[in-house]
Every structure is written in structure tokens, then in C-alpha cells.
């Protein structure tokens, strides 16, 4: 049993204080990072509540329900920035990266406090696989929003289509790592391979433009 709210406050307060002294993109990233951590806590509440309401156990909630709730929760602040604050282009990518990394950081903190941080391989798996997976989902989602906005094709079904894609990708990862063995190894490799490919293509695209 951990007190996730207390951990959140402990990490969040220095970040919020730092916002008073930083400006520009650094401020935007720090704020997005903080929002990502808050969203992570809210997603955990909702997942827990769903588990209580339905007839599913903790394992089923983690494998089947969490990807849907987590991706939906991460999408909301990005969509808010796009629609209300009119954030576009690289600024939206910055926000998405901040939310994704904030979410992953807080989730990792809670897991390590629950299960211990003594096993180095486990710590690396948490960092390299789960951490990256949240960022990959957010980056793909943000890139598709930017593309849709650029070509004046931003629509409700388009946004939710991209969200559904992120949910499925996240769901596949959770399913693969739910049992030890070969499936877990494939699952851990999945976000790493995706992020390397995504980064390669993104650099090529940036250089071309």
C-alpha cells in the first residue's frame, strides 16, 4: 500500500515552484510534465473504480481496461491545448512529450515504491519499455493531430480514430508483458523498436523541411 497522492505532491511541488522562474518552452514542458503526473493519478483512480464496479479482477483491469482509460486520460490535455489554447506544430509535440514522460515517470515511481527497486533488470525494463511506450503513444497521437490540422482535416472521428489506435497499441503491449517468457521479451522490445523507427523518420522529415 502506497499513498500515491503524497508521492505526487512531493514530486509536483518543486516542479510547480520552478515554473515561477522559467519561461518559454522549458516552462511549457515542465507544466506538461506536471499535468502528465496528475493525469496518471486520475487514470489510476478511474481504473480502480472501474475494477470495483465491474466483475473483473486486478489482472484483467491492468491488461484490458487500463490501456483504454490511460490513453483517454492522456488525450484530454493534448486535445485541450489543441482546441482551446490553439497549440500547434512543434509546441504540441512538446506538450505531448511532456504529458507522456510525466505520466510514465509517476507510474514508474509508484511501481518502484510498491515492488522495490533492488533488481536492476526490472528497473531498466520499467524505464526502457513502459516509460517509452507512453511517450510513443503520445507522439503518434500528437503527430496525427498535427497532420490533420495542417491539412484542415481535424475532425471528431479522426481524433478518436487515432486515440483508438493508441489504445490498441498500448493494449497489445500490456497483453504481451502480462506473462513471463518470450511474449514479455517481445513486449519490452516493442516500444523500443517503435521509438527508434519513429525518431529516425521524424529526423528525416525534419531535415527535409
Amino acid at each position, binding site marked *: 500500500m502506497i499513498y500515491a497522492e503524497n508521492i505526487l505532491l512531493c514530486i509536483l511541488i518543486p516542479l510547480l515552484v520552478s515554473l515561477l522562474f522559467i519561461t518559454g518552452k522549458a516552462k511549457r514542458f515542465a507544466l506538461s510534465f506536471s499535468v502528465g503526473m496528475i493525469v496518471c493519478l486520475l487514470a489510476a483512480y478511474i481504473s480502480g473504480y472501474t475494477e470495483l464496479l465491474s466483475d473483473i479482477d486486478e489482472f484483467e483491469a491492468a491488461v484490458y481496461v487500463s490501456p483504454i482509460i490511460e490513453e483517454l486520460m492522456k488525450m484530454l490535455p493534448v486535445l485541450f491545448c489543441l482546441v482551446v489554447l490553439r497549440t500547434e506544430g512543434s509546441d504540441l509535440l512538446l506538450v505531448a512529450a511532456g504529458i507522456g514522460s510525466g505520466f510514465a515517470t509517476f507510474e514508474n515511481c509508484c511501481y518502484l515504491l510498491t515492488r522495490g527497486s533492488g533488481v536492476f533488470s526490472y528497473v531498466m525494463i520499467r524505464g526502457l519499455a513502459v516509460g517509452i511506450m507512453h511517450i510513443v503513444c503520445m507522439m503518434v497521437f500528437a503527430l496525427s493531430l498535427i497532420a490533420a490540422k495542417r491539412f484542415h482535416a481535424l475532425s471528431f472521428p479522426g481524433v*478518436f480514430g*487515432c486515440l483508438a489506435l493508441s489504445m*490498441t497499441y498500448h493494449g*497489445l503491449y500490456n497483453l504481451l508483458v502480462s506473462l513471463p517468457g518470450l511474449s514479455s521479451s517481445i513486449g519490452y522490445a516493442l516500444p523500443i523498436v517503435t521509438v527508434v523507427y519513429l525518431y529516425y523518420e521524424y529526423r528525416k522529415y525534419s531535415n527535409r523541411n
Partner: protein
Amino acid sequence: MEYNFLSITEQILQIGVLTFIFVRSLLLIKRGYNTVIPVFFCFGMLGFLISDIYWIVHTVMFPGKRIPFAVNLMGENAVFLLCATVLMIVVGKERMKPGIETLITGIFAAVITGLWIAWSGEWLKDIICGIVYGYFLTAVVRAVKAEEVMSKKARHWAAVFSLLFVAMMVVQLLIPRPSSIYLEKAYYFVAFAGLIFCIVRTVLAFKDKKNSNYLIAVSFLSFAWATNTMYVSASPVYEFASIVCSITMPFMLFAVERKAEES
């Protein structure tokens, strides 16, 4: 067990087709046709691909275990939403005004959703998927009307045909089992007759070198009817319909490629 083997074979075949489509659409984007149509189409097909992989992985890892809220269905929702977006962009919102066709398609989708709930009892999952699927079907029907894939008279016949199809399914559900078998066979016949009609129209459209908008509308219609046939069929007809559905998917890719090259 025999049907499980059949399901896995059919899913592997579909994964092969979807991988081909995903790679081709990715290459299309990389060739410089990085407009939103190939991007959304590519993402949609990726959603379908991940959904199929998810199903196979789940079957292998947890054989016989029921999925409480199928994450893989979210992948299928991604296909329908992104394909509907592609249609909206291609045809244009102003040319896709809702009319009587939209209403009939809405009724059709609502009845299909009701039947899913009656068959599976999983109302939340079925309502979410039903809304998304209904949206996709209405987008297809509006695109078919806007691009004049069918004449007005043919569209009226199609509406009658579709309503007859759902009516047969409802009656089949209400009457007792031995008598309902004949009706079940009859609606499978109607579903596959519609599917053959759509595929033949699509092939002829490609043969006649119709414009890319027309090709997109007709190929998406084939895919929509193929998925419809698949979703209302029980195993082993489901697996057969799924194989036919895999055949309709490359037509969508070829139509999107034509559109990208034209633009």
C-alpha cells in the same frame, strides 16, 4: 477446436494482407505523398493489423479465456473512424450532407447493434462499437450517393435490400431453432449476394478507370458490406466472410494510391 484452427488461419491470412497494405501505404507516404489521406488510411490499417495480432496473441496466451472489454475492438473502431475521415476528406463535407439514406443506414446500424447485444449480451461493448460502425456506414452511404456510384433507383433497391436483410435476421432470432435454420441460410445468401455485387462493381470500376473519388467510394462500400457480412455471421461462415473481407481491403489501398498520385 476445428473452428479455432480455422479462425487462426483466417486471422493469419488477414494479417498478411494488412501487413502488405500497411507497408504499401507507408511507402506511399515516404514517396512524398504525405497528405492526410494516405496517413489516415495507413493508421487505420495499422489499427486493424494490431487488432488482429492482439486477438492471435490472446488466443495463444490465454486459450478459451473471454476478453472482458476487448481492446482489439478499439483497433477495429480505429479503422472505421479513420476510414470515415478519409471519405469525408475525399468527398468533402459539403457534398456529404445527410439525407434519407443516412436515416435508413442509421436504422440499419441500430438494428445490427441490437442483434449484437442479443447474441452476446455485452451491451456496453456492442453499443460503443455499434455507434462507431453506424457512423462509418453512414459515411460510406453518403460517399456512394455523392460520387454517384449507384443510380437513384439502384440506391432505393439497395435500401429495400438492406432493410429486408435486417428484418430477416430479427425474425430469425425470434422464431424457434429448427425453423430458423432456413431463414439463417436465406440471410447468408442475401449477405453474400450483396457482397458479390459490391466486389464486381469495384473490379469493374477499376477496369473502367473511373476517377479516384469514385474508386474510393466503391471500394469502401465493398469493405463495409464485407465487414457487415462478417459481423452478422456465426462460425464457420464468419471465417469465410473474413477471408472475403481481406480480399476487399487491397482495393481500398489501390484507390487511395490512385487518389494520392492524382493529387
